[in-house]
């Protein structure tokens, strides 16, 4: 399949080292290498290409985070791992959408049990999307202050100057209020 499409398959160790080093080219090679495999799985099991894209990107994110955490063992092949995660995610989604007819799905590769990992990823994912919602509802200038301070690690001094606060204490009080609001928005969802 991959030969047909002239896709270069990076070696597993190349991918792991590349992701640890934030390499864009390795991420691209990884992505291009295994998308056809996942597209094949989804379109032949009641899905379409957009769903294949969603599922595949989610699996790449799971893998990416796993590698970043340093716990991807080379004993399982990346290809098998990606396929297994996609298969698990797709089965769950089919069930949620009541499109699952029962029985076996049509498989194209070997797969591993990854239920627990997928479960953990989904819990984390839910938290992250709740954070996204909370930030959206937060409004300015709180949103920018939170982003500057907690995402971009800008100093209080910088933030002070950006927003024209007369002294650092005012900025600190403002930041504290913003954080409290963000927490409230996050937890009331």
């Amino acid at each position: 399949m991959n030969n047909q499409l002239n896709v270069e398959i990076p070696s597993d160790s190349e991918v792991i080292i590349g992701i640890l080093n934030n390499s864009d080219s390795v991420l691209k090679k990884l992505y291009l290498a295994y998308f056809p495999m996942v597209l094949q799985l989804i379109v032949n099991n009641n899905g379409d290409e957009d769903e294949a894209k969603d599922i595949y990107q989610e699996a790449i994110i799971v893998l990416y985070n796993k590698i970043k955490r340093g716990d991807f063992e080379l004993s399982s092949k990346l290809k098998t791992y990606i396929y297994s995660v996609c298969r698990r995610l797709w089965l769950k989604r089919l069930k949620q959408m009541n499109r699952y007819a029962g029985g076996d799905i049509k498989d194209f590769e070997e797969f591993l049990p990854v239920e627990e990992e997928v479960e953990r990823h989904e819990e984390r994912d839910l938290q992250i999307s709740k954070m996204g919602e909370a930030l959206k509802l937060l409004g300015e200038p709180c949103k920018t202050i939170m982003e500057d301070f907690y995402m971009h690690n800008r100093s209080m001094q910088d933030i002070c100057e950006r927003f024209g606060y007369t002294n650092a204490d005012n900025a600190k009080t403002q930041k504290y209020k913003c954080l409290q609001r963000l927490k409230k928005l996050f937890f009331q969802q």
Partner: protein
Amino acid sequence: MTMRDNQLLEMIERYLGGEMTLQEREEFEALRKKDASIDVKMAEHKDFTSLIKQYNERKKLETRLNAIHQEIDVHTLKEDLMAHPSWIVQMWRNHHSKISVAASVAILAILLTLFITGDLSNKDPRYIQLKREVDKIKGRTEQLNTKTDKIIKDGKANGPTINAKFKGTGFAITGNGYIVTNFHVVNGGDSVYVQNDAGESFHTKVIYTDPNNDLAFLQITDPNFKNLGPIPYTFKKSKSDLGEDVYTLGYPANDVKLSPGAVTGATGFKGDSTEYELYIPINPGNSGGPLLDSKGNIIGVINGKQTETTGVGFAKKSNYLLKAIESIPGDSLSKALSLNTKNTMANLSRTQQIKKLRNYVFMVKVYNQ
């Protein structure tokens, strides 16, 4: 004394960020000991703020993935990958019970025929793989000879003193010790040695096998091995034509032998499209040898011959060799495996080509207890 939340938060942030002075740090740590709720608050704060960071990282990663995704022609890819239900499937859906009965009768008939004609056994009697099974007596004499030679030559013995069980041929794909041979030559062996034209043996490690294409890759791990220098031949990517003059160098005996021949078919045994059919005098022991054209390109790897017709042999096409090389996992390679792209044999006469080539062709000796 109760501390105001915003002050506590500031302290937590300065503590986590390593911004406290030594004294502030000690005071804060004393406070943590006294009041366990501070640790709980600190953990919550850490989780919450790391979630803000993670949200940001996730958004960035999604942007990167979407950009990559846009480069894929998903529509064409999808067309290629859809399993279209064909008219056969339609017919099956409508008539499967009738077809089942007819099929079982047909299968029974075929099985019966195969059973009677002996075709059912995995080993086709009309085809043999060309590894050499060394009989014990011959092996012992030879071992004695080699030993004597060695003692005379330099007094140091290389390789194990037990008999090699199987022998075949292999050839270098790089100068730094990677060698290809047939899978069936090394299959089932405990240790594999290669012996060069000068009679020196080197220990090797089997680093990758591709049983489908009957290929195995060895790496010379022997400390006595010296780099062979640049490989004089290249690997042909395209197919060779019928009638092409070819030859192989191999070890059907204890010294290297030349077998000249021609490509006589674009498919191998039983129409196998991954192989060439050859008219070439080869024998057990030639398995794994290089098949070269007159320009000194590797066009295949010898792997079998027909027993019914004398002189008919088979070789795995070089593009399957190249594919197999590409699929060797990077972590199996302790040294670089980069293929030579400069052919230094193209303008040489065959005798001159062989003089060069013989330094890169090895006898493969497989031992098992």
